């Protein structure tokens, strides 16, 4: 059904479960390293593969990260928090139970301010943030879908098993209306910003550091009771979250408008077709036989620790955005472009290194974004903010022209060193030696003897031909403004 029509008939209610992989050095419950991309089944300890007699021990750093994240989400931190076992059989779950938290999560009752593209703020209520361990990874081989059904066999890699996760669960989010898809994207982006600002996760969705399950239900306008929801699993980019929510609203609206009922189930998101398909039926009666994890004692964070972590919290992303917009003096449109390009922290860092805000914006949204786009990578992964700042300073001081600076930037990106090192090794500095410039000018004048007369006759633009020739002769490493001055001096002669 058409999205507008769906919104006329129904009110969407959203809910999100976002899993954040913490970037601790070791795993949640033992000493195996927490690394991405290692050979399968090499970054494992006995507890990750559930060997008999192995025991979990809680990673203190993961607890600290979880508390920090809980605080950043405006949550209360539990005085005593317990792990529980979630029991179900699945080959990626070595023990056939997951150590998670159930009725005593580390953090609960928070809220997050989410900013929409037009600057409106939306408050998303957070029910809880709890600690748990990740499962291993299955690869289904054979069969057309890459899913377990139809596969000939499956491979399992336990490197990810036991990686610490925080699962952030929202309460039902009502009132988003037609903004629901955008809010979905903005919410996940906000969580990404928060965990990055905290430094608790790499938060790279393409690596699965940040994974989102999106719950969508519809109810007729004016109805209090919530409709039946679906849970679309593992929607792993901001854009996909937005599309998946939009698709589910339209799909459910069509069924409901037709007099049908929504099946409570998990659904799979298909990036290529932009649709969801049914997964397994899910009901609130799913029986995971939770019970307190007897191998672990409760986590009892001291008030002193909580306050220490609270004091160390970075500024909330929404508050930081408001502050930076004012400090930088950007227009609404300029600032929104920066935010939407995901370049806020890069520009902030560049400004902190000493660059003027408008220069930092110009380079990041201009040349760097262009190269990133061409190479299909994130701009932030190309070059360090301090190098951008250094580059800007070299232009400001006249040591580099814009054109030279772009060459230096490419060299920096290609790993040739810091800007000043590139300038030195490639000999790219602006030629500010008047003697060298004058020699080139005289050569050009000799080739075009009528130019001086034209200038003297008031046709100053004729100098352009000489400036062009000089720039060409010097391979671009001349300061065009200085060349112009010198040509005019010669004419005055």
């Amino acid at each position: 059904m058409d999205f507008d029509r769906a919104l006329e008939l129904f009110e969407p209610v959203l809910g999100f479960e976002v899993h954040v992989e913490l970037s601790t050095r070791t795993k949640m419950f033992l000493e195996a390293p927490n690394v991405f991309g290692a050979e399968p089944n090499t970054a494992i300890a006995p507890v990750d593969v559930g060997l008999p007699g192995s025991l979990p021990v809680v990673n203190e750093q993961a607890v600290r990260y979880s508390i920090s994240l809980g605080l950043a989400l405006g949550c209360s931190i539990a005085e005593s928090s317990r792990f529980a076992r979630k029991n179900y059989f699945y080959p990626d779950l070595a023990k056939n139970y997951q150590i998670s938290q159930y009725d005593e999560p580390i953090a609960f009752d928070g809220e997050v301010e989410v900013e929409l593209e037009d600057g409106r703020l939306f408050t998303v209520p957070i029910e809880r943030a709890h600690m748990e361990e990740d499962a291993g990874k299955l690869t289904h081989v054979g069969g057309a879908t890459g899913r377990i059904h139809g596969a000939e066999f499956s491979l399992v890699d336990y490197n990810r098993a036991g990686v610490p996760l925080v699962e952030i669960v929202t309460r039902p989010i009502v009132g988003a209306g037609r903004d629901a898809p955008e809010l979905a994207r903005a919410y996940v982006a906000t969580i990404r910003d928060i965990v990055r600002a905290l430094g608790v996760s790499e938060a790279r969705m393409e690596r699965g550091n940040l994974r989102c399950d999106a719950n969508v239900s519809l109810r007729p306008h004016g109805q209090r009771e919530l409709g039946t929801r679906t849970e679309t699993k593992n929607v792993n980019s901001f854009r996909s979250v937005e599309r998946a929510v939009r698709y589910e609203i339209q799909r459910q609206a069509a069924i409901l408008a037709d007099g049908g009922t929504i099946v409570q189930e998990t659904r799979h998101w298909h990036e290529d077709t932009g649709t969801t398909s049914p997964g397994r039926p899910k009901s609130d009666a799913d029986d995971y036989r939770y019970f307190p994890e007897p191998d672990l004692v409760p986590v009892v964070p001291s008030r002193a620790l909580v306050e220490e972590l609270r004091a160390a919290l970075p500024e909330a992303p929404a508050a930081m955005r408001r502050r930076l917009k004012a400090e930088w003096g950007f227009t609404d449109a300029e600032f929104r472009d920066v935010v939407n390009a995901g370049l806020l922290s890069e520009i902030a860092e560049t400004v902190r290194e000493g660059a003027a805000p408008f220069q930092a914006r110009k380079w990041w949204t201009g040349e760097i974004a262009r190269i990133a786009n061409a190479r299909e990578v994130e701009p932030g992964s190309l070059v360090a903010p301090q190098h951008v700042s250094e580059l800007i300073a070299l232009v400001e001081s006249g040591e580099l022209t814009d054109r030279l600076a772009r060459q230096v930037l490419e060299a920096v990106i290609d790993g040739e060193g810091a800007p000043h090192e590139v300038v030195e090794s490639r000999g790219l500095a602006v030629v500010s030696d008047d003697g060298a410039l004058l020699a080139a000018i005289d050569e050009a004048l000799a080739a075009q003897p009528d130019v001086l007369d034209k200038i003297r006759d008031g046709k100053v633009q004729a100098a352009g031909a000489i400036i062009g020739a000089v720039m060409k002769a010097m391979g671009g490493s001349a300061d065009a403004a200085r060349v112009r001055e010198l040509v005019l001096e010669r004419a005055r002669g």
Partner: protein
Amino acid sequence: MTDSAREELTRLPAADLADLLRSKEVSSVEVTRAHLDRIAAVDGDVHAFLHVSDAALATAAKVDAARIDGADLSPLAGVPVAIKDVLCTTDMPSTAASRILEGWIPPYDATVVRRLRDADLVPLGKTNMDEFAMGSSTEHSAFGVTRNPWDLERIPGGSGGGSAAAVAAFEAPVALGSDTGGSIRQPAAVTGTVGFKPTYGGVSRFGVIALASSLDQVGPVARTVLDAALVHDVIGGHDPHDSTSLPDAWPSFADAARAGRTGETLRGLRVGVIRELDGEGFQAGVRTRFSEALDLLARAGAEIVEVSAPHFEYAIAAYYLILPAEASSNLAKYDSVRFGLRVTPPGGGTVEDVMAATREAGFGDEVKRRIILGTYALSAGYYDAYYGSAQKVRTLIQRDFTAAFEAADVLVSPAAPTTAFRFGEKLDDPLAMYLNDVTTIPANLAGVPGLALPIGLAPEDGLPVGLQLMAPARADARLYTVGAAIEQLLEDVWGGPLLAKAPALPGGMLAAEEGAL
């Protein structure tokens, strides 16, 4: 050394062997060979061992060499030890007496095993048990029963029947057991040996193939209280690999036991008799010996007081919800995917089919029974009525203990309600089997330490009767002191250890001393 002189070595307590080793009157190789010979002679009948180490003599030789080099060795260096098969060992299969783990060799030692090795004890082998420590008779082993050295037609108790029988049959001076609801103490009671369940958290569970994590505790099995204390000193203490391990610094338990044999430690001691652990269901001869033991304590100056623990009557019910619940989860990992048995159904199948076929073939009936019980107890809609209620009972039992320990320094009861029963007697009646642990279960539910030691033979069947002593959590040392004092009083009466009365085993060379109590 003659064969009979060597067999004499097997009769000695670990403390005496340690003295002979320290003074270099015997070597560890001699002591170890004596026990290996004894195992070869009698274990065909007793079947205490599932696996006998082929490295024992080499280990012993290394200890002897270190001693000759003048190394500073620990008190039990060179003394052989038997290890319950529930404990992980890198050099021997560790199966928990289950088909599903047949032949599995772990890549790590249990912390307690590591500590035995670090203290230069000599592991002799792995002892039989009820599968995954589920049972009170060792009849549930997947690899055959263990026989009680006092009567080969009877059970040696369980789940640690192998460790108790090995020690009672002089195949090992000391052994390790694990006690979830009485698996160290009840076998000790029915084999005339000493068994100690430490305070929960006092001994590491790392490398213990888990039955019920909140109840399991490793402890020593021995023929004397001092020997148990010496082993406890080796294996106990904090382990960062076990979150539930207590950070406490513990006193020397051996010193505590020695103190019991030297002073008037029983005078003025308040001994609490638990009203609820007596009467119906207790064998007449057990009650006779128990009441005689109380008389002996009173004559030695102890003050006998009656205490009530009103919630103990619900202990078995609570235990048989909590234990299966935890076990059902702990045993979920045995699914054929990563280790252990794998059974593929005829014609292949999905991973679920393979898991199901493996668990069907790999687990025995008692294990399946408890997995089903536990899965049910944790199910949505039943959790509050079963697991939840059981946890509340657990709290009430802990309060009963707290109240009782205000009136008494130690609590006493028979260690088991009956003497050793015959094979098959309770096999078809799980409830009767479960009731055998009525005396021992409360200590596990409350996490307090318990000691079982022999107090004589029941007049009607001539089989050993055990006394259980319990102390508040962390007061393990008190039990060693009191236990050693009682042991000495009784041995004075008997004129030697009770095990001297055990009948000779067919393969053994030494006849038992004649005489009755």
